């Protein structure tokens, strides 16, 4: 586990509200969607909403016992806790129906228990990856000015030419170019930080490079970087 992740875990353990909110803001929607998918027909939207909160509450309990040496991915870690929360809810309902009330497993036991066959699928992993990209974009948007981010949005995320962007916004091409460079550089920094924070394994750490989002601020890499980002953004915004 990299030092940033360790630091983030420490913040969570110390109940840093900002760290918890980040986790909630970035991954809450995925947890809700996942819980709804698993509980389809058994739980409603509101219950999924509650359970996604409970997932984080359970995570708060589990964070003290989290053992990095187990080698679990960050995404798998979230996945297990969400599964546990849903399973716990279903068990509780069944127990109420039968007039019993026995919880099958404690949370830490559940995390160590052998999988029941349901593993994070590719779609889930992609959602986690996209959520990290979105988190970095949001962080950049908060940091840079609206004009600069709009240049970046139109030029990179929406794939327009520099001249089109300059024409649309009524700016000079050089202003577009400056704004673009500024935002791109900031985004590289934030992407590195976000992926470092939410990666428990070297494999997760390397996902940025694998997807063409190199953190190297080399002009030669810019077209690849922009292209990769544009594709991810298109995928992200097509999902609602």
């Amino acid at each position, binding site marked *: 586990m990299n030092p940033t992740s360790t630091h983030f875990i420490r913040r969570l353990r*110390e*109940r840093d*509200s*900002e760290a*918890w*909110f980040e986790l*909630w*803001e970035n991954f809450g929607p995925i947890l809700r969607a996942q819980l709804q998918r698993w509980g389809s027909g058994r739980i409603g939207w509101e*219950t999924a909403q*509650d359970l996604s*909160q*409970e997932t*984080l*509450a359970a995570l*708060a*309990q589990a964070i003290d016992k989290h053992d990095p040496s187990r080698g679990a991915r960050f995404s798998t870690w979230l996945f297990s806790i969400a599964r546990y929360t849903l399973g716990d*809810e279903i068990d*509780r*309902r069944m127990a*109420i129906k039968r007039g019993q009330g026995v*919880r099958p497993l404690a949370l830490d036991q559940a995390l160590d228990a052998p999988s029941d066959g349901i593993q994070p699928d590719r779609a889930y992993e992609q959602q986690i990856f996209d959520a990290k990209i*979105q988190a970095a*974009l*949001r962080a950049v*948007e*908060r940091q840079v*000015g*609206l004009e600069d*981010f*709009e240049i970046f*949005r139109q030029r990179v*995320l*929406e794939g327009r030419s520099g001249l089109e962007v300059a024409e*649309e*916004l*009524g*700016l000079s091409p050089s202003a577009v170019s400056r704004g673009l460079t500024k935002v791109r550089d900031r985004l590289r920094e934030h992407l590195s930080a976000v992926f470092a924070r939410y990666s428990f394994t070297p494999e997760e750490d390397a996902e940025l490079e694998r997807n063409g989002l190199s953190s190297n601020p080399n002009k030669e890499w810019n077209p690849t970087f922009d292209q990769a980002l544009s594709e991810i*953004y298109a995928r*992200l*915004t097509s*999902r*609602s």
Partner: protein
Amino acid sequence: MSLQTYHPPQDVVHPIVTSYGQHSIQVTPEGAGSEAPLVIQTPGEPTWILQGSEATELGGASGVHIGPAPEPTSHTISYGYGGDPWYAEWVDGWDDGGMPWALQLGLVLLGVWLAMKVIGLVFQGVGAVLSFVWSIVTLPFRLAFRLVRGAGRLVFGAPRRVARAATGSAALLAASGKAMGRTVSRGYESFADAYNRADLEPGPALRKAKASLLFAQRKVEAAGRRVGHRLGRLGHGAVPVGADAGSMGGTYGETPGFHLGGGAEVRPEFPGYKILSELPRGGSGARLYLARPRREHARRLAERGVDVPAQVVIKWFSLQAGAHMSGILREGRALDAAKQLGQVVEHVSGQDGLFYVMPYVAGETLDQYIATLHGLEQGHLAPSQEPLRPEALREVLHLSHDLLAELERFHAHGLWHKDIKPGNLIVHEGRMRVVDLGLLTPLASALTLTTHGTEYYRDPEMVRLAMRGAQVRDVDAAKFDLYSAGAVLFSMLEGTFPAHGNLSRLTRPCPPALGWIVRRAMAEHDSRYASAQAMRADLAYLLEHKHWSSIKPKDLPSWGHSPEPVAAPASVDPLLEALESPSAQAAATPPKRRKRWGWKCKKSRMALWVPLVFVVLLGLSNRSQPRTGFAFAQPSGPVVEVVRQAASSQFASWSARNRADWARQQVERLLAQGPEGRIEQVYLHGLPQGRDGRLMGSLLSKTMASEEAQALVVQPSDPEAQRWLPLAASASHLLDPLPRGEQPATTAQIQFFLEHPEVQAILDLQGGRELDAPRMVISPLIGPRMEQPLGRSGQ
């Protein structure tokens, strides 16, 4: 010669003289000397006939019956004769033995009655005989008719019964006939009202809808009759849900605001109002009704100076009907705020809850408008990718401008709507109105921010701040409304909600300046429009230009003016209004003109408005005194510093009003740091660990002050909090863990809490008064309280 008979004492009144001593009577009738003879009847004595003044004895066999007379009981006789008039008193008890007239009359009536009775019996007997005879005669014909009808049903009725069984309409009717009957009845009533009285034009679509409803009603009645016996009496009958609900839904959809709500529900009574229909419910647990004030009630309200609209919306909170206490409390606060906007006709609180009355805004919701605009009502699942027509874009611009004007009004009254979304916006005749003021919150509220609102139209920054436990007055909550306004504009342009916040893509071609306005409204908090006024100015700029679609973002008034001064406060202060007057506006000219006037002019104008701003500040600080309780008799050092800054050249490009606003905010911030402005956050202690603790926390949060997380700040060391500890203790018995998904608390439990004298004292439901006292607040499951997550609290 005829005899005239006199019967004393009726006829012979006077003068009558009797002499019983000799068993003789001497009588001289009135008018002595008359030629007519008189017959005098005396008991046991001969009859005397008097003629003239002579009396002749006739004897007992004269043909005149002499009946027995009672023995006189007393007599008084004195008489005279020979020219003097006779005088006497008749003897008591004298009677000829005849029947009294009253008795005679009674006997006659009895005789008549008996005669009629006898005649009636005779006729009855004859009728019975005739009826019997008729039934005997027609019996063969009736038997034959029944045989034929039975055969016909056997042959023609079977397919119909099979079809009925297939559709299940009969079963559905039997199951919920009564409730559905009400639905149709209400629907028809609502529609008829909209059709006949609302300001709708009876166009072909409405006529068709009315015909459809009538048809449905008749069909249902017929179905009820077919099903038989009691269902047939349901009058308006019921709608077979599976068969007709769809078409009925479409029909009702044409009635503004009507909701095809099903289910057997109690329809409340609101004194003075006639309910026309039920409207879709909001998320607060309240029920909404479209109603019409009764004439007498409207007159009474008008006498009190209330402007009574023709139709009203009644918002009803009832614990019995599923409203939660938290919703009632929240609504109480909103009610208070809504009154400031003149949006409340009246409100009534009762044992079971409260209701209040608002003017009804006719029209379609923006949701419906967007669906029409993007062709979604034609069955398309996704909006078309075609660019919107220029006229449609211009209408979008107009509607957005209306929305911003409304928001400006809200913010000017110091209020934050908090739930701007298409479902809460009504479009009518090209104008947009804001409705549903259920979450209305004062911008200066000491409440902690909550996460209420609607996802995708709610600023993520608001959630972030709520999680941190920020108070409303510490943030610029008006900007949250601006985010929502941007999201609404996005929806109008795209036909769908912004699923990824400001990262959402505008896929349909739209004028660059309009896209920019969306981006700026939904931008990060610091880059966002500073006020509704600023956003409206951009929209107004586009509306002013004929070729607005070619305007670039950099041409907009707001470009490069970030951050701007905050939203204008209520212009209730005469001095502030004076600042806004044309002369003052002319004095506070924009920088371009000021350049021509030169430095001297600038100095002189500054000399004019600085004292004004100062006085305004004093006025504003005094206004805020009751809220904060902070005595502010003399301006303190920091306040003077604020005014000095406002007057400095760094604000030269701002208008006088904006300078005053900025200064006011600074002063209020200073005031908020005073001892009375501090509300400490504390947590509820003593929740058990584990699942029960979580459930109890969840229950508590849902039942009482809910997510508002306004904590009853129970820091044992805090003397103010000590006052509220008993209340927390008394509430603790409400915390019986309930399974998830069930009602969070029983009505009795909520009622108990509501009726608690301390709760009553602080909550003041009647007035919906904003509270400054510490409130019951529960830690949410996550967020800023995460350092003490539920299940671990108290550790």
